[in-house]
């Protein structure tokens, strides 16, 4: 009898404590991200960007009078881990929406989770084009990132400009992203320049640590230029091994995979070869417009860094699409938010950005340019640099 009384009391106390929370329940967003391992250097600032948006929204009263609660979890570098973390958050933390994942395989894995669990998912970074194309496209998946198709095609636009580059080789990591970005680059380049030929394609595995045998074979095929899609630390490692062989002096290099982003140029220091063409999500030094200056200022204030990361925008924009869509829908009902997201335009880190209704893909371009040494900064910057709009490159 006494025991029953204790249990009843405990239950009542618990109910009492949970009551006020129920009044204005938080909107919970699960954010699995690659936070430990080689990709963490991008995953961390992306998560920071998401937090920055959440703070911005919550400070101005939240959405529909409710606060946003962001649950950031490490899902390392594997798609399995991303799936596990996402499912755990769905079952245990009752998340309302899912945003996150870094590698293309993680994006595909999370998209699969979203389809099964019927939860809205926005991919902030994963680029593999197939994710927002049939047969993989489904109603619950959206992408605020650029995709491998527009990225490869933008690379081809710049590659085609140099008339001396006729013999091309490619080197990319042997997984979905490497293949899809290369598959987008080659036909677009051939369309713009029918006189080019592909002389060799090298496919080191993702995370390969010894690129020497691959570099040797690429050089043996005597290309004028090489299109690469090794990203982050993989590219730096590659560049370190290739530079002593005079690789970048003899051969032109167009690098997809954000070798031009601040993390890459800072991390590589003197190992980053000047003169290569590459891309980035954001640059703090360009463009010199009021909205971009305001954005850089916000990033500086939030992170306390003088040169804010190029990746803050990825997490920020994904979360902004979500919160703006909830606002527009006036409810957190998944189907209504999906409807609201389709065709939605937001003020993003790259200016006006539209989520296409047709394929749930943001019409997002990237900054492209030639990595150049300048006296103002202790690292290379993209100069000249331009924003290559994705709209013209998409079907």
């Amino acid at each position: 009898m006494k025991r029953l009384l204790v249990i009843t009391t405990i239950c009542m106390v618990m109910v009492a404590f949970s009551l006020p929370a129920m009044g204005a329940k938080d909107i919970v967003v699960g954010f699995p991200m690659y936070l430990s391992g080689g990709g963490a250097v991008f995953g961390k600032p992306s998560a920071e960007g998401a937090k920055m948006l959440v703070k911005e929204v919550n400070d101005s009263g939240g959405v529909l009078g409710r606060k946003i609660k962001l649950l950031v979890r490490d899902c390392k570098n594997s798609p399995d881990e991303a799936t596990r973390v996402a499912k755990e958050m769905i079952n245990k933390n009752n998340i309302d929406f899912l945003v996150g994942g870094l590698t293309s395989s993680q994006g595909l894995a999370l998209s699969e989770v979203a389809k099964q669990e019927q939860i809205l998912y926005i991919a902030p970074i994963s680029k593999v084009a197939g994710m927002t194309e049939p047969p993989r496209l489904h109603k619950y998946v959206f992408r605020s990132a650029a995709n491998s198709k527009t990225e490869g095609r933008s690379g081809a636009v710049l590659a085609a400009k140099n008339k001396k580059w006729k013999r091309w080789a490619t080197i990319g990591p042997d997984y979905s992203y490497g293949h899809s970005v290369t598959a987008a680059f080659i036909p677009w380049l051939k369309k713009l320049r029918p006189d080019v030929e592909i002389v060799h394609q090298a496919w080191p595995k993702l995370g390969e640590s010894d690129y020497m045998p691959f570099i040797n074979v690429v050089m043996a095929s005597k290309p004028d230029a090489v299109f690469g899609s090794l990203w982050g630390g993989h590219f730096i490692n590659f560049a370190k091994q290739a530079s002593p062989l005079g690789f970048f002096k003899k051969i032109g290099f167009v690098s997809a995979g954000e070798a031009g982003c601040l993390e890459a140029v800072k991390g590589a220091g003197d190992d980053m070869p000047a003169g290569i063409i590459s891309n980035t999500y954001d640059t703090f030094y360009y463009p010199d417009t009021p909205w971009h200056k305001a954005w850089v200022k916000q990033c500086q204030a939030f992170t306390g860094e003088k040169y804010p990361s190029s990746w803050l925008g990825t997490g920020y924009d994904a979360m902004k699409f979500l919160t703006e869509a909830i606002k527009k829908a006036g409810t957190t009902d998944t189907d209504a938010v999906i409807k609201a997201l389709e065709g939605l335009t937001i003020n993003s880190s790259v200016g006006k950005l539209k989520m296409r209704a047709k394929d749930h893909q943001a019409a997002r371009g990237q900054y492209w340019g030639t990595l150049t040494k300048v006296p103002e900064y202790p690292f290379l910057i993209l100069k000249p640099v331009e924003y290559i709009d994705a709209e013209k490159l998409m079907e």
Partner: protein
Amino acid sequence: MNFDFSFVAIQFLYGLTNAMFIFLIASGLSIIFGVLGVLNFAHGSLYMLGAYTTYQCVSFFVDSPGYFWWAVIVASVTVALLGGIIERLLLRRLYQHEQINQLLFTYALVLILSDVARFIWGVDQLSVSRPAVLKGAVEIFGQYFPKYNIFIIFLGPSIAFLFWFFMLRTRSGRMIRAAALDRETLGSLGVNVDRLFTVVFVIGSWLAALGGALVSPVVTIRPGMDVEIIINAFIVVVIGGLGSFWGTFLAALMVGTVYSMGILVFPRLSMIFIYVIMVLVLIIRPWGLLGRPLQR
């Protein structure tokens, strides 16, 4: 595809370099299994710790001359001693248990050590410069080949030869071989088998750590390198024959060169060749190329 001979030769040399690294690591794995009968999953973790500790030592010693070599020696010995401590305090208690328990234990070590490394050195990629004397490249057949790689190609066989000499011509070597064959008889002859086991584990750990230390200027040091190498080392040991020293050497040569030549000929399939060799060996000679069939 048509390649100049010089590129093929250089490709072969890269394969040899790779083979020597794999040999260093796999030989340690092989000798520990041969004598202790323990399949040490954590061998790759010792290799990883060797690389991280080298990085640490390099940043300590960077102002003194020849700092890289000191770092390699200090790091490999430190990790070897850590191996000794692990054997003495933990692994020893498991010799009486079934092999599956030992395997689970060493797997637990993999997880623990990788978290320890993550805790101490973080998750970012680290790198070590090549020692000053071995910076740059030499011209071979009109192509450039890094000096450091040449050093590794010569170092591998030297260590193999020294090791072979130690095992065949010294008293300790003979005892180790005897322990591999029949530890009970050796013990009844008055030899301290427990101590012998610790020594072997320390030697094996040293080989792994040395591999990690020497590989540090060639690759990036990062979490996950432990698991990557252990798979390659297992493949080599399986192909060569568990516990067979020269088998390990031969298999490392095969795996290293087949992989790099595969990149030249069939870029997409280079890794598959190695698995195909392993599968063929397992079917035709399950005890490995130079191993002995189990007689239990």
